[in-house]
Structure formats: structure tokens, C-alpha cells
């Protein structure tokens, strides 16, 4: 590789860094002041792209930039005042889920407004050509992008250090309680910060359209990139976001330039892993002081009464009788419910009692599913062996990813689990030779003895029931109690010899393995597996199931999984925009029923 082509890759990286920085800076600013991680930030970038493409037909590319950015900012104001304002005092899991609901709703809006096809943007007038740099042709527009990043950084810096508004933002970022005690108008401040963050996101999207088409998948791709950048750079630090955006974009550019475009994700993962090991708070971040006051007090996870145990046994017996009455669609739906019940129970294990809010649990479901498919199709293993060995793939994945994840807590952990899941998804999506790429794998059917719907239903019932029983047993074992101890009071846990991180790592791996079993069961019931099985929406489905049933109850995930699976089945069959419906369900759930249906029942009961 010659010196000139190295320079060219470097410039490519710089051009990519600018839009990444704009997106991450907005996310970071909003988090710093409101303490909300805005999952829908990537969706705002996506909207910026679509709006700019639509507008540039009428008013030209250059005018479309500020117009699209301002429209997204206006939407940001609407979202903040109508929705986020109600969430500032809510537990962080609910905040994350509510903003994820916006992802679903905004994506379906874009689908409805602009259709499923990619939209090509115009080229930038006056910058259509290329510039000669050391005998290579380099797009003039990319040179313009290179300048945008530092310009925005400088503008933000001036805004934050030279204006009264900036002083307020910095005060609120450093100490929200003190800032409000000093009489700062929080409402106005929060709304304006959110508007600025949205403006930057919209601008990032609009700036991108001469380089890439507007697509519906941009939302999650951008937000997971932005998560990686703020984790590496330090959440709340604008210069950190800039440095990390440069680092990540350069790494990407060089991987692509050297012809290893498929390695990009692996290298990105390595960069993030190294940053986390050596700088757990990010390159320019500072360790966060513990929040004042006690953490949320979780209710007691009551041991199941004999009546509950008898009821569950009766339920299992009743399920075993179903094939006598029906062999049709009901059986297929029940099989799905049982599989997702196991998935939800495994997620509940780490999310509720262990307090690790994973937004990437589907990665392990998918690893189990792909593990089974690959073993069967590529290695010619029989179904029994594929089913038994597939969870090992999930185990290995959870072991590696979990090692990093349990080093963080709260929002950081949520972002990291999501980023890892996105990486796993991308690998499945890109590795055609093994995973079949975007088409996935087909023709993964059970062995002859389990081939009928009835036989497979019994197999799923037996495996799911056994795994759920084991998981619940573990919740009331010393291990399960120790996890709740570490969640309730890390200080006290440490002071009585509990090695919280080791236990949490074990729990993460345990839950990942059981999700992998669910994934392996799922692939044989459908006969195929696609990257969707480990995509972020699947992870969030799991959280919704857990939340629907009540996060601090024992059997809640069971009812949540059954209800959600039924709902998804009923809605998805009849309606193109079912994701938006799910989004609305999530919003209702987080705003009106934070305790889940279980909590609703308990409130009604006389005790």
C-alpha cells in the first residue's frame, strides 16, 4: 500500500467520522442533561435522510440540509414535551423501552410515507466532481464533510462555554439536582437540549444523502454505531465523542480500504473491547459519581406458594392434553409461545433479579438457532446432536460478551449488550458461506420421530418446561439470592464477601445458554433461520414480554410471552404496520402500566 493510498483511506475515514460525530454528539448531549439514552436517535438520523431526499427535489440539496434538520428538531420538541417529559423520573429500563417504541413507530411511518425501496439522494451541486490528491481522485463533497465535523465541534464548544445557555447545560450535566435546586428552568432547558440533539441528528442524516441512499435499516445501524462511539469516547463528553468517532471511522475506512470489509465489525468490536478494558469510562469520560439517595427498592421475589406450584403443574398437564383436541394452527402457536416463554424467562433471570438490563438477549437466541442450523446443514449432524450442541454456541458467545458487559452497569450495560447483538447480527448477515447471509438457512427440519406437529410440540413442551423449572429453581438458590443481593446493595454485597461481577458473569452466561436452547428449538419448528432471529427488535420483544408480565414477579414472563406471541401473531397477519402497533403497546405499557399485568392484578387483589 503506497503512501498516497494510505492518505486517501485516512481522508475517507475523516469524511465518515463527521456524520458519526454529529449523531453521537446529539445522543451524548441529550443524555448529559436529561439522563435519558435516546434509542430513537438513529431514527431521527433516518428521518433527516428521507426528509432531505424528499425536499431536495423541490428546493435543491443545499436548502434541504437546514430545512430537514429544522424539521427533525421540531419533531424532537414535540417528542420531548409530549412523551419524554413523562419519563424523566421513571426507571431507566422503562425509559429505554419507551424510546425504543419510538424507533418502531418512526420506522413504520417512514415505510408508510416513502415505501420499502431505498431512496437515492441527489449529488451536491457545485461539489459533484472529484479533486486530484496525489494522483488519486477524491470526491469533493467528502472534503466538505471532513470540514463539517471540526466546525460543528467548534460551534458546540463555543455554545457550551461562551453562552449562558451553555453554562446551564454544563451545570445540569454535572449535577442535575443541584442545578434544579438553584432554580434553573429545567423544562425549557431539557426541551432545548433535546431540540439541539435532534437538530444534529437530522443534519447528520441530511448530510449523508449524497453518499448513501436513505434506507429503513439506517436507524438501528446508526444508533448502535453511536452507542459504540459514546461508550468508547465517554458518555456526556463531546470531545470524547469526536475522538471516538475519528477512531472508529478510521478503523472502518482502513479495513474497507485494505479489502477486509468483512473484518470491520470484528475490528470495531476489538477497539471497543480494548477501550473498555483500559478506560472503562471512555477515552475522555470521567467515572460517574454514585447518584445521591438510595437506588430504587425492588419488591421481594416471593417463593412460589404450593398453590402456585400446583397450578403450574396443572398447566403443564393441560398443555400435554392439547394435541388430543387440536393438531392445527393452535398447536403451532402454542409451540411458539412455549419457546418464547423460555426465552423470556431466561431474559427475566438477568434483567429482573440480577438487575442487568440486556438489550441484546436475542444474540444468544440467534447463536443457538444458527448453531443448530449450521450443525445440521454444514456438518451433517443429526437433529438430536444439533439441538444438544447448539446452546454451546450461545454459551460461548455469552461467555465472551458477558465478560465485558458485567464490567459496566445500568445504561452503559444496556448500550454495550445492544452493540454486541448488533455485531452478532451483522456477522450473520454478512457471512454468506456459513450463515447464508441475508437469506439465512432453510431446510432445517426435525428428525423423523419429531417431524409431526404433535411430536415436536411435546419435545418443545418437555425441554421448555424443564429449562424454565431449572431457571426458577436457580432464582431461589444461594446463587439467585446472591444476584439479588448484588443488585440491592453492591456496597453491602462486597462487604460480606460476594464477588458480584463473577456471579453476574455466570448469570449472563447461564441466561444466554438458555436463550440459545430456545433459539435451537425455534429453528426446528420453523425449518429456517434468518438474521432477523437475532436482530435488536427480537431482543426488545423479549423485554416487552418480561415487562408485560411484570418484571419483579416469578411467573410474569410466562404470561407476558404468551400474550405477546399471540398479539404479534394476530396483528402481524392482518396489518403491514404491525411494528408501530407493538410500539404503541410498549408506550402504553411503560407510561400507564409500569408494573406489568401482574402488578395490575396485585393492585386489584384485596391483600
Amino acid at each position: 500500500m503506497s503512501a498516497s493510498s494510505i492518505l486517501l483511506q485516512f481522508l475517507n475515514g475523516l469524511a465518515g467520522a463527521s456524520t458519526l460525530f454529529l449523531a453521537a454528539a446529539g445522543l451524548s448531549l441529550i443524555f448529559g442533561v436529561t439522563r435519558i439514552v435516546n434509542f430513537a436517535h438513529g431514527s431521527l438520523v433516518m428521518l433527516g435522510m428521507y426528509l432531505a431526499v424528499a425536499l431536495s427535489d423541490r428546493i435543491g440539496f443545499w436548502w434541504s440540509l437546514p430545512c430537514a434538520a429544522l424539521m427533525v428538531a421540531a419533531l424532537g420538541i414535540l417528542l420531548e414535551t409530549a412523551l419524554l417529559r413523562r419519563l424523566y423520573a421513571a426507571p431507566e429500563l422503562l425509559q429505554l423501552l419507551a424510546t425504543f417504541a419510538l424507533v418502531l413507530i418512526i420506522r413504520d411511518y417512514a415505510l408508510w410515507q416513502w415505501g420499502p425501496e431505498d431512496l437515492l439522494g441527489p449529488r451536491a451541486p457545485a461539489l459533484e466532481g472529484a479533486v486530484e490528491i496525489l494522483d488519486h481522485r477524491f470526491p469533493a463533497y467528502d472534503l466538505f464533510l471532513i470540514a463539517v465535523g471540526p466546525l460543528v465541534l467548534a460551534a458546540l464548544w463555543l455554545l457550551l462555554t461562551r453562552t449562558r445557555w451553555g453554562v446551564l447545560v454544563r451545570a445540569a450535566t454535572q449535577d442535575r439536582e443541584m442545578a434544579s435546586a438553584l432554580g434553573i428552568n429545567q423544562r425549557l432547558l431539557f426541551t432545548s437540549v433535546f431540540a439541539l440533539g435532534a437538530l444534529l441528528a437530522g443534519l447528520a442524516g441530511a448530510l449523508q444523502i449524497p453518499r448513501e441512499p436513505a434506507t429503513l435499516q439506517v436507524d438501528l445501524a446508526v444508533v448502535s454505531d453511536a452507542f459504540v462511539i459514546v461508550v468508547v469516547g465517554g458518555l456526556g463528553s463531546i470531545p470524547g465523542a469526536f475522538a471516538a468517532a475519528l477512531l472508529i471511522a478510521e478503523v472502518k475506512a482502513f479495513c474497507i480500504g485494505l479489502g477486509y470489509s468483512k473484518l470491520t465489525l470484528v475490528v470495531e468490536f476489538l477497539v471497543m473491547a480494548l477501550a473498555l478494558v483500559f478506560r472503562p469510562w471512555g477515552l475522555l469520560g470521567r467515572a460517574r459519581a454514585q447518584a445521591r439517595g438510595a437506588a430504587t427498592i425492588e419488591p421481594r421475589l416471593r417463593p412460589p406458594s404450593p398453590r402456585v406450584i400446583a397450578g403450574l403443574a396443572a398447566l403443564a398437564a393441560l398443555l400435554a392434553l392439547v394435541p388430543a383436541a387440536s393438531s392445527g394452527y393452535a398447536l403451532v402457536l402454542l409451540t411458539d409461545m412455549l419457546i418464547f416463554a423460555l426465552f423470556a424467562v431466561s431474559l427475566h433471570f438477568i434483567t429482573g433479579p440480577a438487575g442487568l438490563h440486556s438489550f441484546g438477549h436475542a444474540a444468544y437466541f440467534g447463536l443457538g438457532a444458527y448453531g443448530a442450523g449450521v450443525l445440521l446443514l454444514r456438518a451433517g449432524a443429526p437433529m438430536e446432536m444439533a439441538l444438544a450442541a447448539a446452546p454451546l454456541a450461545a454459551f460461548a458467545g455469552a461467555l465472551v460478551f458477558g465478560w465485558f458487559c458485567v464490567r459496566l452497569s445500568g445504561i452503559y450495560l444496556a448500550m454495550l449488550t445492544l452493540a454486541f447483538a448488533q455485531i452478532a447480527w451483522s456477522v450473520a448477515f454478512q457471512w454468506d458461506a456459513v450463515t447464508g447471509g441475508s437469506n439465512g438457512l432453510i431446510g432445517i427440519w426435525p428428525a423423523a420421530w419429531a417431524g409431526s406437529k404433535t411430536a415436536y410440540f411435546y419435545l418443545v413442551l418437555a425441554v421448555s418446561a424443564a429449562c424454565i423449572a431449572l431457571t426458577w429453581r436457580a432464582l431461589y438458590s444461594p446463587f439467585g439470592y446472591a444476584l439479588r443481593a448484588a443488585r440491592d446493595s453492591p456496597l453491602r454485597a462486597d462487604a460480606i464477601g460476594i464477588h458480584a461481577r463473577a456471579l453476574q458473569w455466570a448469570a449472563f452466561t447461564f441466561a444466554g445458554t438458555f436463550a440459545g436452547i430456545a433459539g435451537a428449538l425455534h429453528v426446528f419448528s420453523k425449518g429456517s433461520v434468518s438474521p432477523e432471529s437475532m436482530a435488536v427488535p427480537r431482543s426488545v420483544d423479549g423485554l416487552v414480554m418480561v415487562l408485560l408480565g411484570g418484571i419483579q414477579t416469578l411467573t410474569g414472563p410466562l404470561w407476558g410471552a404468551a400474550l405477546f406471541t399471540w398479539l404479534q401473531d394476530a396483528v402481524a397477519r392482518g396489518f403491514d404496520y404491525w411494528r408501530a402497533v407493538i410500539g404503541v403497546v410498549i408506550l402504553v405499557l411503560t407510561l400507564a402500566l409500569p408494573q406489568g399485568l401482574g402488578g395490575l392484578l396485585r393492585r386489584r387483589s384485596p391483600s
Partner: protein
Amino acid sequence: MSILLVSGLAKAFGGVQALRDVGFTVDAGEMLAMIGPNGAGKSTCFNLVNGQLVPDAGRIELEGRNILGLAPRAVWRLGVGRTFQVAATFASMTVRENVQMALLSHARRLSSPFASATRLQREAADVLLAQVDMQAQADRTAAVLAYGDLKRLELAMALANRPRLLLMDEPTAGMAAAERMALMRLTATLAKASGIAVLFTEHDMDAVFTYADRIIVLAEGILILQGTPAQVRADPRVREAYLGEAAEDA
């Protein structure tokens, strides 16, 4: 032999020297009170001894064994129990389960995923709860306890590993006067009966002068005096440390 030996202990936060050259010992069965005005370095000293912070210089020995740089959970395994200024317990568990956790950790049973935790160490937990007079509340959730009861629960948990040394940071903060004296009396009785060395900080001077065998006085990170309660009471430097220049004018 003394249970705890501290010498030459120093710790700075940024430019602020929180502790410099602090040294003292605590013997088995002895109640040693550490007093001093706010900001004197008492909590820092506690956090250094139990491993939450690492000192810049100095030695910390437990029964002759160097414990410098060990994590709190390792220090606990060597026999150091701790209570916190703001009581730290497991809010989602019952009182008995809280104590069972400490006992199970001591017995190294916490990684066991299939046993039933509530059945293990139940009697031992009840014995500990009886010691601090909490057995009547064994089945209540820690989240609903009165603050004084939380402090007694903490004490029971700190006693679960048969500690050689108890570190009690403001053990009676937030308690009513009668309750305070009762808790200190209980602690002193347990310490004498089991030969536990107790290092405690306390704002309530009545409790300090009634129950401490010896007192050390910190001011601005320096150990200015140590002696019996009578010696400390008589020393003018203590008044000065607490009241500053005002003491001379008065």
C-alpha cells in the same frame, strides 16, 4: 497481640491530604473510638482499612498479616465485619434472608445454583438475630424496617463470619438516644464475650465516653491524640480541634 495494626497511613484526594501518617492499634475485646470534627478523615480511614480505598502510603495488618491492597470482599474473608454510616442491607429480602446471605457467603455456598437458599443456615441466622434482639422481625422485608432496626440487622450480618475486627462507621447515626446506648452496650458486650476488636466512629459523645476503652482523635487528617476517655476529656487540644479558635475566646 493487637488485632489491627495501622501505621504511617496516608491518603490524598487530588490536592487534598485527607490523612497523613496515622497509626494506631486495636486489641482483642477492645472498643476503640475514633473521633474528630467533620472532614477529619474518619470515613477515609475506615475505607482504607476495609479495602474500599487504597492508601498512598502506610501499613495495615490484621493479626500480623498484611491486608494492604486487598478488595473489601477479601478483607471480609479474613475476618473484618463492617457497618456503614448509611445502613446498607438487601432491601428486597427478609431480615432472616439478609443474615443467611452473610452466613452462606462465609460458608462459600453462594455459587450453588440448585439448593434452596431459604432452608440453609436458617438456625444459625436465627441465633445471630437473637443476639441483636431482632428475631421477632425475622420474616419482615428489610425495606420496611425502622432505621434503628436496620442498624441492628447490619450488626448481625457483620457478625456472621465470626469477625476478629468490627468496623462501625457511625453505628448509631439516626437513632433515638435510648436506642443508641442500647446498641453500643450490645456491641461492647459482644466484643468482650468473643474477643472482637471494635473500631468505631461516633458523633454522640455520651456513647463514646461511656463505651470506648480508648479514644483516638483525628483533626484535618492528623492523629492528634490517643488515650483513655478520661485523658481525652481533659485534653485542651480536643476542644480546640472541635471548636477552633472560638474555644480560646470562650
